[in-house]
Structure formats: C-alpha cells, structure tokens
C-alpha cells in the first residue's frame, strides 16, 4: 500500500522519528555523563574503597599453573643488602666516597675503600658503579640547588609524604635474631618481653589460610597470597636483629611459609609521578597491615616476622608475590597484579603456621611487556631495558640475574634519578605510565578480562595501539631537571590538594613556567 497524503504539520510517523532521534541525542549525552560518574567514582579506586576481601576480585583460577614460577638457569646467588639492595649499596658507597672524595671511576675500584663483596659486585655490574658515582658527585649537589629554587612548589607534597614516614617510628623492627624475636609477643608497655603462647591448632591448612587471608584484608591488605619460603630470595646477610656472625646459610626452621600482601598507592597521587607522588603512603599502609598480621599470628601461638618497606626486609618480596599468585614479573622487574597493575606495594610475613598455599598465575603480562615498552620509553634515567624480551637484556649479566632469568632494571640509574627528581624521594613513573596501573572502571575491566583470554594477541596489540596513540605522554627528557632539557614534568598534574600555590602564603616558583 502506498500512502500519498501530505499533511501540513508533522505526522505521527514524523513525530516518532524525531522523537527517536532526540532520544538518541539525549541518550548519548546521558551516557557521557554516566561514564564520567563511573570514571571518577571512588569505587574504581581499588584498594581505597574499603577494607574488605572484595578488593581481590580477579578470578585467578583459569590462569593458575603448577609452580614454581621461577626456576634457576644458573648458579643461584642470594641477594645481598650490601650490593643488590640499592639503599644498602649507595649508603656504603657514600661512606667510602666521603672518605675518598678525590676518587673517580678512572681509579681502580679497589681504591675506593668499599668492602670486597661490593668491589666484586661493581666489577660484575660496572654501570652501577658509574651511576652511584654520578649520584653522589653530581646529582645530589645539583638537586640541593634545585630545591632552593623549586622546593616550595613541592612543599605540600613533601609534607603529605612526611606524615607517612613519621609513622615508621611506630612500627616495630625485629631487635633480635629470628629464634628469639619471632617468638615474642609484640605488645608495647610490658615491663618484660613476653613469649608467644602454645600454637592454637586450626582444623586444617585451608581453614588457616582462609582466616589469615580474611584478616589480612581487614588489616588493610588489598591483595594477599601464600607460598612456601625459599632461601634463594632471602638476603644472604643482615637479617633484622642478627649479628654479623649469625649463620645465614640456612633459613631458621620456623621460616616455612611466606604470606605476601599488597596495597596500591592512591591512584590520583601516583599519576603525579615522578615528582609529587609518594611511595611512603603505600609503604605505610602495607607495612602496617603486615605488622598487624604478625601480631595476630603470634597471638595464636605461631612465630612470625614481618618484612616491610617501613621496617626492614629480610627477603626480596616480588618473587614470593609471584609464587603466591599475586601477579607476574614485569619489564621493570616488579610484580604486576590483575587488580592493581604495577601500582602494588608489597610486604610479607614469614611464619610456620601451616597454611594452604596458592599457585602462581600467568595472565599475559610476559607477552604484554615484550611488546609494550612504555615504561622503558618513559623512564627518565634509561634504567629499564628496551630489549624485545628478557633474553635480550643488554646490561649487567644479560638475561640472568643471580641465577634466574627475568627482567631487571639498572637500579643505579634508577636511584640516580630519584636523587634528581623533586618532591618526596623516588620516582614511580614506571608505575604511573604502565597500562596495567589503571582504576577499576568498565573499560579497564574489559581489557583485564579479555586480553589474558585472547591467544591471538590481537587484543593486546589493539590495546597498545590505543594506549600509545590516544593517551598523552611527556617526552622522557621533560621529567628531568631544568637545565637538562626538562622542566620536572609529571605524568599527570598533581592532585589539587597538593597545589602549594593555592594553600600556602610563601613565594613559589613553578618549574613548569616558561
């Protein structure tokens, strides 16, 4: 049937068509607004919404495999506080350099006056020696000068961070060897240290793990996993409270299980890396949760000892986090987790409470990191390898670090930039720019769930295409100091509460001004 009638006003059909078009426009606007609310919602700040187990929401089951995640490929050398641990190493270098201020890298390293193990380390990793030298001979003096000019700009960021560092004074570090301190209760104000009671038996290992995980979340851990202790990742000397002649060649008998916990740094603040963000906020929260965990385990009659960034590390934690299924190793060497991406600060508690352990997971990080390289391209110090895979790492001992093959960074170069950047100590830029370090809104949920299930790699490459082409990144040099071609750029602007010029009545010079 053909209708031919022509009416002067809009017909019912026209009305419906116009109404449909108008509804489409309104719906599009409504979705932009709804998206905006979802994107800025506090519920997307994983680890900051609440203290409850729901924060560990990723279903790891499909990605589990029988561990271990790491297998040695050469002779294993345990990490050393004096050499591998960057703070320990630079402190030793600093003491020696201050005693020998005329020493330069052209002189034999033996003349520097550092202990023999560090001499050997510097010979194995000569680039670390060059960077440590540069840090103390050039970078720190320059930073002191920069701070006189730009320090006030970061006044609030520094003050905010100091609130967390101050709390370190209230977190206990073991004061005697594990055989003693791990068996003592932690309560303050008792005239005499009190030994822990008899162990209270759990019904089974699963129940023990279930309880420990539940309370870990309630104590503030966003993520928690359990694995067996392995001596390879414990420092080869210098455990908290131990004398020099302590026998470090074997683990104390009660160091059997490692509970690893992780929390994120606050999501907006960390995006202001490398200048105005702070690691100490994440350090403080994770350390506090670990100390609480040590307390509850001891209260149940089992020895325990926390290794935390605010107190002391007896072990390097990322390998345990990976074995415990929290995540996978990434290009900068840290553990990327499904929930928090790279934005995950770790602590651990070692104990002999028998618990069911977790399995490691593979959810595509290895392949993603091989393709991605964003952190390496952005890193202001060039500390992160640009190689196409860990096998092709170009520095130090190539692909193998202390007997294991995986990604690792040039921590001398990294630390050097820590002492160049403004604001609270550190950089964290590789955390901020990583595509995995994103809040928990539907876009990132989709990416997180689809990519690990896509064996073709198309999702990964599409995500990377969008990440690299749609998101703005400063040039790496822009993060550097004024005078080195940079302007102390941040990946994203500082959150409003850290804008000193809006709050403080002091003269402020912005490094970003032309």
């Amino acid at each position: 049937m053909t209708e031919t009638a022509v009416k002067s006003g809009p017909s019912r059909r026209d009305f419906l068509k116009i109404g449909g078009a108008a509804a489409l426009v309104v719906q599009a606007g409504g979705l932009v607004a709804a998206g905006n609310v979802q994107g800025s919602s506090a519920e997307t700040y994983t680890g900051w919404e609440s203290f409850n187990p729901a924060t560990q929401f990723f279903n790891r089951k499909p990605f589990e495999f029988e561990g271990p995640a790491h297998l040695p490929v050469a002779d294993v050398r345990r990490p050393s506080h004096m050499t591998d641990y960057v703070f320990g190493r630079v402190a030793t270098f600093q003491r020696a350099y201050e005693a020998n201020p005329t020493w330069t890298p052209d002189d034999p390293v033996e003349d520097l006056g550092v202990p023999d193990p560090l001499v050997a380390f510097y010979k194995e990793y000569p680039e670390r020696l060059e960077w440590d030298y540069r840090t103390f001979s050039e970078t720190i003096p320059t930073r002191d000068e920069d701070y006189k000019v730009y320090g006030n700009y970061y006044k609030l960021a520094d003050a905010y961070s100091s609130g967390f560092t101050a709390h370190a004074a209230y977190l206990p570090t073991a004061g005697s060897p594990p055989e003693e301190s791990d068996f003592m209760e932690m309560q303050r104000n008792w005239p005499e240290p009190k030994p822990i009671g008899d162990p209270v038996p759990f019904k089974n290992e699963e129940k023990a793990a279930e309880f420990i995980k539940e309370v870990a979340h309630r104590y503030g851990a966003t993520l928690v996993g359990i694995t067996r202790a392995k001596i390879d990742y414990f420092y080869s000397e210098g455990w908290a409270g131990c004398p020099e002649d302590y026998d470090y060649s074997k683990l104390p008998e009660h160091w059997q299980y490692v509970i690893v916990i992780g929390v994120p740094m606050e999501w907006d603040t960390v995006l202001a890396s490398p200048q105005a963000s702070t690691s100490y906020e994440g350090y403080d929260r994770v350390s506090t949760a670990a100390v609480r965990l040590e307390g509850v385990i001891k209260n149940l009659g089992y020895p325990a000892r926390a290794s935390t960034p605010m107190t002391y590390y007896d072990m390097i934690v990322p390998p345990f986090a990976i074995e415990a299924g929290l995540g996978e190793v990434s290009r900068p060497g840290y553990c990327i987790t499904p929930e928090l991406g790279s934005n995950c600060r770790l602590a651990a508690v070692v104990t002999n409470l028998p618990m069911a352990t977790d399995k490691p997971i593979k959810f595509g990080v290895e392949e993603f990191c091989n393709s991605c390289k964003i952190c390496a391209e952005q890193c202001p110090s060039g500390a992160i390898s640009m190689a196409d895979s860990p096998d092709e790492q170009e520095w130090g001992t190539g692909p193998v670090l202390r007997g294991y093959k995986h990604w690792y960074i040039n921590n001398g170069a990294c630390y050097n930039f820590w002492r160049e950047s403004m604001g609270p100590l550190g950089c964290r830029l590789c955390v901020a720019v990583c595509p995995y370090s994103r809040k928990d809104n539907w876009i990132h949920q989709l990416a997180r769930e689809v990519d690990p299930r896509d064996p073709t790699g198309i999702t990964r490459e599409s995500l990377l295409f969008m990440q690299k082409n749609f998101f703005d990144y400063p040039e790496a040099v822009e993060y550097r100091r004024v005078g080195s071609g940079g302007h102390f750029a941040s990946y994203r602007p500082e959150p409003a509460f850290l804008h000193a010029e809006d709050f403080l009545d002091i003269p402020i010079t912005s490094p970003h001004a032309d």
Partner: protein
Amino acid sequence: MFFDGNIFWLFMGILTVVVGGGFNEFAKSRGWTLTWWKWALAVVWYIIFMMGFYAWGTLIGENEGSAGFRFFLMIAFISAILAVGLWRLLAIGSSKNVNTQ
C-alpha cells in the same frame, strides 16, 4: 548521584525504546522490511556507537578527556563505516515505494 542510579538507567531504557520506535518508523518510511536479523544487526551497531559516548565520559571521569575524545572519534569512524554496510543490509528486500508518512 543521578547518573549512576537506578532511575537514570530506567530512563535510559525508556529512551532506548523511543529510539527503537523512531528507527522502526524510519525503516518503514524507507520501505525496509525489518526482520529479526536486521534488528539484531541494528542493535549491535547501536551498542557500538553508544559505547563510544560511554567510554568518552568514563575517560573524562578518569581525567583522560583527550584520550576519551580520540577513542570516541575512532568509534565514530568505525560506526560510520559499519553504518554504510548496515544501511545496505537493511535495504535488502525493501519495497520499491517509499512511504512518506
């Protein structure tokens, strides 16, 4: 907040019905016969197109507005290409005489 509440999504549902009704009338006026698979394709297209707006808003909320806009442009471009193909598919089996009301 209104934009993440149940009332808002109810409103969005009503708008979807209105859009569907308008599309139905538009199809009739062009003489298209809307079969189930044409409806299905049109719905998929609409979801993709609208997803561009939702993603744009989400990235604005994440303080990544320019990335959101670029993403939206990409979705709009893809939608435009898909729309050409969809148009041809929708026209399959259309009656010769085009309704004007």
